[in-house]
């Protein structure tokens, strides 16, 4: 197992190479450059050339890439061309916001998705099954932008139950430790701020969680249906176990494996930044951060953030693969 993990971590190196290279090429082939963004359309050509030289943009591409790699190996992601802040430092504030939102969204998606999927499978073709699967179908095809706006309209504007945007009301401030506000507010012992942070989290998490929730529900249902047909389920019933035990213990543990795959993948996607959700809810997360950086052709920011996200994506996959062995003893890695 340790061997396997080490090997997988080593495999990370070429993968990260590939990803950094691809991002690098992509972003440099999009027309436009940061100089225009910084100086505006009407800057003098001399000033532009000077700045370009200063930013190292006149170097051949391979040289720029090697420089980036070299810095990366030293744990340096460079500085934003626009803000001149260190990319790592900026990520440390934006990324936790996304992590918090993603965790909340995935929590809702997993709990509700699995519960709905299990009930739908157990009561196949019932009204609940039909209704929830129709909901799931709508869920996956729902434009998040629109859903977000509807949620804001209903729960913030009409009902006034929840705040429409941002992470925390201005009257609260807590010392930053993890930058996950739910944790920071608790660490500060500020209960009111915690509740406020939680209230801010609900709507964006719902919007962001809808697609994964739908996917998880459908996957759970089909996986459960498959498992419920198996002989060992009949054995469990023949032993005299009650339905709850049969379904929640014997069936669900078997049915969970494909669901776990989906959870892992969705988790990775969401971490990559939920631009839509973050935009609609003015959530200061990494999705918006990268989006703005792309628009500004802020090469170091785009390059650095995507590298970090890719790294985390791959790590999540590794964790999922390890979790497989915990759930299914037949899976063993050499």
């Amino acid at each position, binding site marked *: 197992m340790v061997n396997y993990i080490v090997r997988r971590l080593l495999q990370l190196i070429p993968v990260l190479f590939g990803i950094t290279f691809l991002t690098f090429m992509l972003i440099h082939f999009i027309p436009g450059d940061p100089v225009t963004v910084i100086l505006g359309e009407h800057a003098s050509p001399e000033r532009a050339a000077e700045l370009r030289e200063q930013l190292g943009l006149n170097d051949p591409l391979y040289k720029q890439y090697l420089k980036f790699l070299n810095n990366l190996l030293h744990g340096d992601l460079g500085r934003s061309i626009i803000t001149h802040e260190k990319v790592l430092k900026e990520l440390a504030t934006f990324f936790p916001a996304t992590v918090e939102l993603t965790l909340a969204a995935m929590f809702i998606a997993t709990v509700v998705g699995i519960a709905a999927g299990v009930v739908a499978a157990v009561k196949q073709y019932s009204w609940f099954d039909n209704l929830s699967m129709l909901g799931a179908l709508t869920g996956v095809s729902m434009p998040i932008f629109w859903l977000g706006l509807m949620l804001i309209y209903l729960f913030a504007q009409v009902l006034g139950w929840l705040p429409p945007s941002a992470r925390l009301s201005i009257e609260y401030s807590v010392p930053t430790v993890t930058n996950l506000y739910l944790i920071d507010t608790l660490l500060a012992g500020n209960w009111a701020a915690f509740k406020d942070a939680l209230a801010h989290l609900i709507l964006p998490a719902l919007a962001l969680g809808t697609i994964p929730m739908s996917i998880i529900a459908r996957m759970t249902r089909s996986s459960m249906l498959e498992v419920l047909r*198996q*002989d*060992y389920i*009949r*054995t*469990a*019933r*023949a*032993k*005299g*176990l*009650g339905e709850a*035990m049969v379904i929640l213990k*014997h069936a669900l*543990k*078997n049915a969970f494996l494909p669901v776990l795959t989906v959870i892992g993948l969705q988790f990775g996607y969401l971490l990559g930044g939920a631009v839509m959700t973050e935009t609609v809810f003015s959530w200061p997360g990494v999705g918006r951060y990268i989006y703005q950086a792309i628009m500004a052709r802020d090469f170091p920011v785009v390059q650095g953030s995507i590298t970090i996200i890719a790294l985390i994506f791959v790590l999540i996959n590794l964790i999922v693969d390890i979790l497989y062995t915990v*759930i*299914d*003893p*037949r899976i063993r890695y050499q």
Partner: protein
Amino acid sequence: MEKILEVKDLKTYFYSSGKEIRAVDGVTFSLNRGEILGIVGESGSGKSVTSLSIMRLVPSPPGKIVGGEIIFAGEDLLKLSEKEMRKIRGEKISMIFQDPMTSLNPVFTIEEQLLEVFRVHKKLSKKDAREKAIELLKKVGIPEAEKRLKSYPHQFSGGMRQRVMIAMALALNPALLIADEPTTALDVTIQAQILALMKELQKEYGTSIIMITHDLGVVAEMCHRVLVMYAGRPVEFADVKTLFANPKHPYTIGLLNSIPRLNEQKKRLTPIEGSPPDLGNLPRGCAFYPRCSFKQEVCSEVKPDFRELPDRKIACHLYQGVLDDAAAS
């Protein structure tokens, strides 16, 4: 002799795509305490559905027990609530299945699956349950029982898994064990071992057994009485010696002719020609009619009753006359 189980006119039908499939259609038999009863018949004749009906585990939908009685230890199981039935399953009546490779849950240890039986039915301390589990595994011939408790099913061979299934089934010393083709999926040598084990344990515990099989060799080896089924219906019910020495139903005769016998130097086996009828569209009269070499006119029109002869029960018009004559005189 005390009857432990009496199945009377059991009917279990399946309903799919608007059709009624009569998987079990009027099965009647009884089982004495300590007896081994064989149920034989081609695949699809309703043996498994009969046993699942007794356990009340017929998948529903699409299946439904639509009629009959299943009297177990004086109580009609069909009248029990699901909760009462759960107390019977695994404790009073237990079951082992055809495919040991798929009958154990792959993601739980043998220990977990064995102890579960005690946990559900008995208030045993974990330690006592564990001790009993080890004792059981030893009893069914699993070496290093203590160590193997921590194993998962995939770490066992098919024969060993079936031993685990047997241990699980006998854990609470049930009055009735239903074994649905317990050796069909195993190699011949393993088959013999498992049958020997079951026989031995049956002697020791005095468990009544319903042995479902399509292998008449197994019946000859293990059973006291036999029920022959065809297309969901009982066709002949007699004790083993009578049935083998003097089969009367044309289907039973056909079955016996289609197996090789060691003592008779039969040169040619004659399998029954044709195939079983569509259970959703049974012939009006005798279900065996299309394949029967003794058929008469009445057979295509009238369904033969399952009636008592002095030494057996049988459903065939050939013997209906005999009965009626006897009744008239």
